[in-house]
């Protein structure tokens, strides 16, 4: 594995690659892309800071000529009853679901990539095919099963069902992504570990996991995001009337009245709920640095 210092020099070298005029073109192209990508979001950010009447009568860009700024929308969202405990609930739902699904997927992906057994291909096709199963069509059979098994009455309480559900629904993608990455790990490294007599568990935790960090990091980001933003699975598996345990998304989705409108609150809420996933994304950025896998993908 490369040391940090080596990584730094390599990165520096490769980032100096482009000659000066080329670099200008590069920066310009990136600026244009970022402008296009940001425009919709900036529009919403500005609108989330404007009063409702202004939002529905003039465009967000008029804020530059006629600044009407208010933080009232954000105050309204943050003053919702039970928003703090809903935030904790979201964490309680998201964290274990991410850990369980990523770990279980990593075990399976490792078996698919580096163990030989009968029926391996058929089983793998099955996993990938399950990617397309629509969530909505699974709810009734599973809920019936849960009711018969009494999942809600276990000591881990109402959250258990939600963790299991998120894990189940996230697995096909997780196994697929990790199996692809792990399958590309260099055979020589794996074989040298065998010669050293390392056990399978040791090989997995000491070798495969560290080398798969970029794939694991992206998987964690996505799982976190999908579960954090989920509304339906939480509502269905926690069950009605379980208000004390509902996640943030339920409170935020219920800001307006059932008649619609109240865009300004929904916009403010979208920014508030987006904050944590973005922090997770930033925090995991350091695992996307060149060289961390030591050239894991065979070249």
């Amino acid at each position: 594995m490369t040391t940090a210092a080596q990584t730094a020099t390599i990165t520096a070298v490769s980032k100096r690659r482009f000659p000066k005029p080329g670099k200008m073109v590069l920066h310009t192209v990136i600026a244009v892309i970022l402008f296009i990508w940001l425009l919709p979001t900036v529009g919403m950010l500005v609108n989330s800071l404007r009063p409702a009447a202004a939002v529905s009568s003039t465009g967000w860009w008029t804020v530059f000529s006629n600044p009407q700024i208010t933080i009232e929308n954000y105050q309204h969202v943050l003053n919702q009853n039970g928003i703090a405990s809903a935030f904790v609930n979201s964490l309680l739902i998201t964290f274990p679901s991410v850990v369980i699904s990523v770990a279980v997927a990593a075990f399976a992906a490792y078996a698919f990539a580096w163990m030989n057994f009968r029926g391996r291909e058929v089983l793998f096709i099955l996993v990938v095919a399950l990617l397309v199963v629509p969530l909505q069509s699974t709810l009734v059979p599973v809920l019936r099963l849960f009711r018969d098994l009494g999942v809600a009455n276990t000591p881990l309480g109402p959250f258990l069902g939600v963790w299991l559900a998120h894990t189940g629904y996230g697995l096909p993608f997780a196994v697929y992504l990790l199996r692809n990455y792990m399958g590309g790990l260099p055979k020589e490294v794996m074989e040298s570990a065998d010669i050293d007599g390392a056990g399978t568990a040791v090989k997995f935790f000491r070798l495969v996991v560290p080398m798969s960090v970029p794939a694991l990091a992206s998987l964690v980001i996505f799982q976190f995001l999908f579960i954090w933003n989920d509304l339906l699975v939480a509502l269905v598996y926690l069950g009605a009337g379980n208000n004390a345990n509902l996640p943030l998304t339920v409170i935020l989705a219920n800001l307006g009245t059932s008649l619609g409108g109240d865009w300004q609150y929904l916009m403010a809420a979208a920014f508030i709920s987006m904050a944590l996933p973005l922090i997770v994304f930033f925090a995991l950025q350091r695992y996307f640095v060149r060289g961390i896998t030591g050239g894991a993908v065979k070249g």
Partner: protein
Amino acid sequence: MTGLTNIGGKVTVIGTWTGSEQDSFMCMVKPFMDATGIQVEYTGTRDLTNILQTGISAGNLPDVAGLPGPGVMADFASQPGGLKPLDTVIDVAKYKADSPPGYVEKGAVSGKQIGVIIKASVKGLIWFDPKVYKGGVPTSWDDLNTKAKAALTSLPGTKEWCVGLESGAASGWPGSDWLEDIVLRQDGADFYNTWASGKAKWNGPELQAAFKTFGSVVSADNVYGGPTTVNATNFGDGGNQLFTTPPGCLFHHQASFITDFFIKQGHAQPGDYDFFPFPDINTQFTGAIEGGGDLFGMFNDTPQAEALIKYLITPEAQQIWVARGGAISGSKSVPTSAYPDDFSKRSAEALNAAKAFVFDASDLMPSALGTAFLKGIVDFTQDQTKLDSILTNLDTVQGGG
């Protein structure tokens, strides 16, 4: 409070009300919780139909639930493990005596009382800016158009109507309200109820005529911005053009809740708007009124759930939401003085004086037909020449195809 005993425990409730509606509902049940010691656990969600449908199939349901409409209520009542009858829970005869004719029956399925209406709204109100339109209350649909023509001579560029049909996945519903009002005034309450229960032919003379009347409203000549704008405008912004200078239109057809949007999104002040009821088209059918209502039903017959249902239809409970605004009560015992403003007071008087109360037809229809109806409205508005194929398709859906 009378008739409430302290029994404790809790009741789980799920409904579509969110935001300020949820606050009003919680205010409504506060005295109930205080007097009985029963905890009311309410969850609001817009995914209501799906959650309940899933819950019935899986046997995992709240005690009490809001229901999207009588059509869905009948679906839920017919399924095993579905809604429980309320005949022994409430005094149906007393409830009927206190409500307008036909009102309580909207919660009944083949003779059994399944749902109760928690709050009502009156549809078919035509809104205008009294500073712009000074023609007075029209006596008939033709009179309305004559008066509009007269008013428009001094207002070049202004159109007779403003319509906004966009509402995400439920787009088209303001147009279905339009059509229902037309059918009710043109063909009467009896035909209306036949139609709403899925027994009238869509591609027949009545519906063809009703669609054509609606078609003239949303035609490029008579509607602000033309049909494209109608389909692209959110229903909440639909009436905003009443208040611009110069005005985009004279009239806007919408239920009583729209005043909230006038103020919040349309830059209107109280006093800038007023309404008259939808005029008669055929005078032999005068006096019928169309309304909507939020139904509640019971899935688990616990003592707590029964106590809650009983409490919610009492005039005392009804009055709480009424006073907070945004609701009309069907109970004749709620005094009109309880209403916070003149509009809701007049709406309530109209409801209580009605000779016949008909319910929003798109909510009465089985949900597949109701959904197809809304889509038909949107398609018709976009291209009126497709009327024949739209109505034929609705007949197919109605027949179970």
